[in-house]
């Protein structure tokens, strides 16, 4: 951060001498993660906000050039750690696009269910934390209690609660069991009640409404011009959802079960309402997907030479054993086309894309991430201008900035 940004006198002119600079973060309860803002204030009004990011930069993209397509999933997990499975699905979606793999129908449905659970988990945290910052603790506790059930579901499938690393090239680490389906049914029973509770706590809450309505307004043209995607764009009136526009996984088949939630408000309240509605739509998708979950294998066939064979195939067939060896030995792996591809998924925060350049080996030459948090935080100074300092938590909460994804 250059020194002149910290120096209020460079704001120029004798008439601006009453401005002062406030350092907000990087360790501040209202920023939730490690963000820093340099605010130029006129009393309580924000004249200029300059974000300073990079505190959590850990070189994920450089690591992506050193790890192979299956290993990098553990790093991708740690980007948006509020909905890690969605990152894994997006990453392997791109890898499978590069390798031209058509995953099995069962895998598609399981990934769809997991992606939607991740969306609910992310939105619950975002809505809960936004309410918490504005003084409503109860909604946060209700939301967190429900997120616990989603963690249980993910643990049942993968053995890991937080960073499951569950997807593999061409499939999943392991198939799900009937107990997993039961856990989802239990979740589906309890979720509408929790959703209704949060709605009752917040939707007519005068303090919450006063602090979110008309705050941080983003118009449709600005949203498009500033590359915004996901709920933030949809709350500004941009009708764009990759699940509908470029159907991937099972969204094409399940298109009848959900609608795209949009709003014209563009303010923090609109973003909150869009997220609440999206959770209900995700609930419908999960419900439809669980009822229609196809049977059959979860990984692509061994003779496609690209996936890791499961234990049964490895220990009981010679093809499986050879394939397992080929995939896991450093000097073997698989061959990839010398080309580049962009693949994107609609994750909870917006369009999570990967621009993957391959040089023919099983490692990426370049694994560029399009991180929605990074792009959403870029609009933050624009949203903050002219607002009060107490609006900072409201806008930050409504954008749902995840610093690990922001800095990678």
């Amino acid at each position, binding site marked *: *951060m*250059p020194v002149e940004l910290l120096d209020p006198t460079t704001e120029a002119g004798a008439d601006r001498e009453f401005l002062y600079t406030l350092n907000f973060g990087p360790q501040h309860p209202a920023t939730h993660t490690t963000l820093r803002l340099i605010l130029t204030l006129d009393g309580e009004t924000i004249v200029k906000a300059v974000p300073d*990011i*990079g505190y959590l*930069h850990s*070189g994920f*993209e*450089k*690591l992506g*050039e*050193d790890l192979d397509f299956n290993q990098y999933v553990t790093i991708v997990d740690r980007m948006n750690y509020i909905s890690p499975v969605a990152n894994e699905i997006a990453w392997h979606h791109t890898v499978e*696009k*590069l390798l*031209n793999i058509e995953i099995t129908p069962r895998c598609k449905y399981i990934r769809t269910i997991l992606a939607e659970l991740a969306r609910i988990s992310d939105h619950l945290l975002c809505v809960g934390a936004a309410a918490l910052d504005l003084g409503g603790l109860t909604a946060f506790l209700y939301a967190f209690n429900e997120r616990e059930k989603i963690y249980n579901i993910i643990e049942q499938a993968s053995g890991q609660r937080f960073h499951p690393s569950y997807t593999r090239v061409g499939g999943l680490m392991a198939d799900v069991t009937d107990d997993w389906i039961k856990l989802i049914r239990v979740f589906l029973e309890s979720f509408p009640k929790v959703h209704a509770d949060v709605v009752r706590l917040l939707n007519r809450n005068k303090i919450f409404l006063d602090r979110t309505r008309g705050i941080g307004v983003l118009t449709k043209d*600005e949203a*498009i*011009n*500033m*590359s*915004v*995607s996901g709920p933030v764009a949809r709350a500004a009136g*941009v009708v*764009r959802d990759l699940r509908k*526009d*470029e159907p991937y996984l099972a969204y094409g088949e399940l298109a009848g079960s959900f609608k795209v939630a949009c709003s014209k408000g563009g303010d923090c309240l609109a973003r909150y309402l869009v997220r609440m509605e999206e959770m209900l739509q995700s609930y419908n998708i999960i419900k439809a997907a669980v009822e229609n979950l196809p049977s059959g294998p979860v990984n692509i066939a061994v003779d496609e030479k690209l996936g890791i064979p499961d234990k049964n195939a490895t220990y009981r067939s010679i093809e499986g054993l050879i394939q397992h060896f080929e995939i896991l030995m450093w000097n073997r792996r698989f061959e990839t*086309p*010398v*080309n*580049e*591809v*962009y693949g*994107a998924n609609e994750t909870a925060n917006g*369009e999570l*894309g990967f*621009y993957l*350049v391959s*040089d*023919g080996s099983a490692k990426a*030459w*370049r694994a*560029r991430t*399009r991180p929605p948090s*990074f*792009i959403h*935080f*870029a*609009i933050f100074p*624009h949203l903050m201008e002219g607002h009060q300092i107490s609006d900072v938590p409201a806008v930050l909460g409504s954008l749902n900035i995840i610093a690990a994804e922001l*800095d*990678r």
Partner: protein
Amino acid sequence: MPANYLVPLSQKFGDAVRGEEFRDNLRVIVGSDKVYDVLKALKEQFGFNMLCDLAGIDYLGYPDATDRFGVVYSLTNVSTGERIFVKTFVNDPDPELPTVTDLWRGADWMEREVFDMFGIDFPGHPDLRRILLPTEFTSFPLRKDYPLRGYGERHNFEQMTRAEG
């Protein structure tokens, strides 16, 4: 179909643009001197109103690569959902590209990140400085000649005591 954009583009820019298709991605490869005009035309005449992503790539040692750096602009037409990828190349010693922040405000941080990671300059950018790495950092870490474990910046980092802070 996205391939339809190639014909009007080559009528307008002649041999400067070249098309490539892989899976569902349509790529337009254009020289760095024409890239701004092509992007402007795509935005204003063909309706690609959103700059979805801006990626830098270092091609040092890449099979059959002739240029050092590639920069890919992913454009999206929000109303039709179509995508197009504009790719251009720049070379040492002074890799630079015209800024597109006047076309898309969203390019601001993306260009700063490419500058931070690859050292590609964007003349005309309103505030081009490092974004993820500290200002004192001297290397460009996503270049292929930068080692994975760095040059020891991490353990040689100057430490500040509480009294100095």
